[in-house]
């Protein structure tokens, strides 16, 4: 069984399509060309202050305009709510449009294209001459009487207001280096992945887009991973989006109160902690990649690196600029206590490898980063630690560093290793330079960089690790690991190499400048959920690193 769809395209099957975002916005523009003419389609989610005006809770607005000649367009709206487990028939509501109602939720479909019922789907056709414009609105409301968005001039106003809003927002981007267009696209994408009501940023808006076509590597990424926190905050701050960074930090400190002082790997956008995984066996899956999963059992995993991520996020957001409230300061200090108690234990680490827990070097590094960040926050006056805690955190930080240098570095391998006393590498070790544990030009870091490229590099891309994780199918190269390598090069001052590599990574984006989590090494195709926040965070941080190294 397949999911729902909302398609608009020329009836002539031999059309060509090209698309782009309206510059510095999240408004998508698609041109369809046929033998008889061309039309332009705008897709957007109108932005306005729903509290100050009477607006639908959510709306998707589509406007199609004839550009040249005459083109016959067909529309098909096939709603399959609740993952196609619920069957709904729309109700004709005269001039109000069509409604689908279930529970206390309602979806209103309005259009100045005549729609009719075909099976359970709404379909319609219209012939557009040059200059003619039609609108389709899909509005969702939960719990209240629906608000029915007008079409015509009013829809046009919403389009203009939304483009203006995005341009004003994108205009606040402080980055002025090369590749500004790609950096802006990345931060606009991060904004799109942000839940407006809480500030939480989801890893990706999709579930079960496969990491290996036709295999079982299909996961639900519609959650917020604390793993992403530090680097995401760093990226937002570097571009001048302090409000967004503080909202994200505030959400994290709020959400984690349920599990404090221990942290859970991930939460949903509301901060809920139970994210049980289940399989939707009735769905065919993308490219027959089954199962389609909802929920993610990774939430049960133990990852010690996330303590460092949360503290790093707080340090980045507050460094030299502000003081934490008493409750937040107490919470962060509590995380330090957990790190002191647990850093000697094993975990699943950043890559969430399913199976036995191990002593991952990267997790130890992030435990070091947690204590280092707390001591820096104390030094900067953002929080006040009692002297005994300062002494304990300092002592444990030194012990962690000693362990990493003694057991995390494998002299025979000539590199830091993925696990303590191990002989394999993984790409997370590149972050040791990005987060400030080690200078990028330190001999050990240089050697690690080289070994990682020797063992994990293919066609200018990097796999994340060299170990088989027991799941069927071979995954692609990890986009963000390539950007970490660029960050290392920039911090070493090797700017030409960094830029060359950066341009190479840009070539792997899709036609809209977006990335999935992974890239197929052979074909360059995007793999996994899409678009992926972490990859775009990597792009931003790598561009900023190049820009700062040039300055």
């Amino acid at each position, binding site marked *: 069984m397949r999911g729902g769809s909302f398609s608009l395209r020329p009836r002539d099957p031999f059309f060509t399509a090209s698309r782009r975002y309206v510059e510095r916005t999240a408004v998508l523009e698609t041109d369809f060309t046929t033998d008889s003419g061309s039309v332009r389609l705008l897709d957007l989610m109108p932005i306005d202050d*729903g*509290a*100050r*005006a*009477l*607006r639908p809770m959510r709306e998707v607005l589509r406007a199609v305009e004839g550009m040249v000649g005459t083109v016959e367009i067909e529309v098909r709206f096939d709603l399959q709510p609740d993952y196609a487990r619920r069957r709904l028939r729309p109700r004709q*509501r*005269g*001039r*109000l*449009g069509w*409604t689908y*109602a279930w*529970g*206390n*939720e*309602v979806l*209103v479909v*309005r259009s100045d294209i005549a729609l009719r019922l075909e099976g359970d789907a709404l379909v319609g056709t219209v012939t557009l001459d040059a200059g003619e414009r039609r609108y389709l609105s899909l509005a969702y*409301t*939960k*719990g*209240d*009487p*629906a*608000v*029915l*968005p*007008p*079409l015509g*001039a*009013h829809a046009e106003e919403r389009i203009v207001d939304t483009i203006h809003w995005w341009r004003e927002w994108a205009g606040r981007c402080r980055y002025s280096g090369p590749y500004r267009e790609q950096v802006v696209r990345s931060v606009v994408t991060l904004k799109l992945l942000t839940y407006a009501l809480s500030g939480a940023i989801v890893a990706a808006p999709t579930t079960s887009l496969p990491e290996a076509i036709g295999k079982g590597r299909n996961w639900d990424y519609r959650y917020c991973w604390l793993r992403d926190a530090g680097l995401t905050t760093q990226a937002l701050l570097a571009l001048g989006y302090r409000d967004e960074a503080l909202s994200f930090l505030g959400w994290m400190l709020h959400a984690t109160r349920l599990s404090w002082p221990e942290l859970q790997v991930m939460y949903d956008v509301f901060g809920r902690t139970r994210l049980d995984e289940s399989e939707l066996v009735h769905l065919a899956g993308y490219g027959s990649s089954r199962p389609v999963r909802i929920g993610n059992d990774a939430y049960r995993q133990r990852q010690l690196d996330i303590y460092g991520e949360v503290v790093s996020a707080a340090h980045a957001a507050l460094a030299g600029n502000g003081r934490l409230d008493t409750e937040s300061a107490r919470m962060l200090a509590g995380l330090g206590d957990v790190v002191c108690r647990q850093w000697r234990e094993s975990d699943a680490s950043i890559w969430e490898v399913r199976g036995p827990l191990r002593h991952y070097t990267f997790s130890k590094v992030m435990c070091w980063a947690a204590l280092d960040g707390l001591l820096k926050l104390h030094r900067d006056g953002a929080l006040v630690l009692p002297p005994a805690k300062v002494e304990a955190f300092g002592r444990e930080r030194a012990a962690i560093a000693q362990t990493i240098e003694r057991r995390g570095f494998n002299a025979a391998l000539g590199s830091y290793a993925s696990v303590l006393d191990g002989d394999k590498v993984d790409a997370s070790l590149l972050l040791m330079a990005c987060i400030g544990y080690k200078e990028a030009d330190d001999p050990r870091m240089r050697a690690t960089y080289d070994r990682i490229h020797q063992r994990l590099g293919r066609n200018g891309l990097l796999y994340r690790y060299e170990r088989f994780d027991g799941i069927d199918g071979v995954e692609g190269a990890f986009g963000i690991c390539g950007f970490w390598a660029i960050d290392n090069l920039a911090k070493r001052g090797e700017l030409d190499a960094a830029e060359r590599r950066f341009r190479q990574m840009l070539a792997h984006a899709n036609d809209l400048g977006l990335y999935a989590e992974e890239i197929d090494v052979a074909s360059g195709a995007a793999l996994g959920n899409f678009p992926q926040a972490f990859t775009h965070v990597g792009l931003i941080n790598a561009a900023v690193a190049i820009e700062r190294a040039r300055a």
Partner: protein
Amino acid sequence: MNLAYPVLWGLLATVAMTAVLQASQGFGWSRLSLPLLVGTFLTGRRDRAVVWGYLLYVIGGWLFAFLYFLLFDSIGIRTWWLGALAGLVHGLFLLVCALPLLPFVHPRMASEYHGVTARRQLEPPGFMAMNYGYGTPLMTLLAQTVYGAVLGAFAQLAG
């Protein structure tokens, strides 16, 4: 009877009725929000409409309490079941007469005849307010019955 009593009981009955209606929204049984419908008579700003709506709704609940007490006095019966019965009839009137009339008097409500305009965008309730969910008639009747029963019960206790 002390005049302050109907004021107090009217408030408590309104609170009970509001609790039932809010619960029906929260549990997904209905999308009817009387405060929003009332408040948008005055303003197109959702934040203000909800506040004004609640205020007017509570005042309305108080005023209706006096009518209920007038009813109890006029027939000399002060019992919870008479209050409940009055509430049920009140609810029926609301569903069958008052709410379906709204599109013709509400300045911000669309209708299936006139369509949607820049000013008129609110979804109309339809017959028995079922546009806001098929559970709406039942929940509205329940809420109004609770309102009347609370007033009747207080009158019974005071009597």
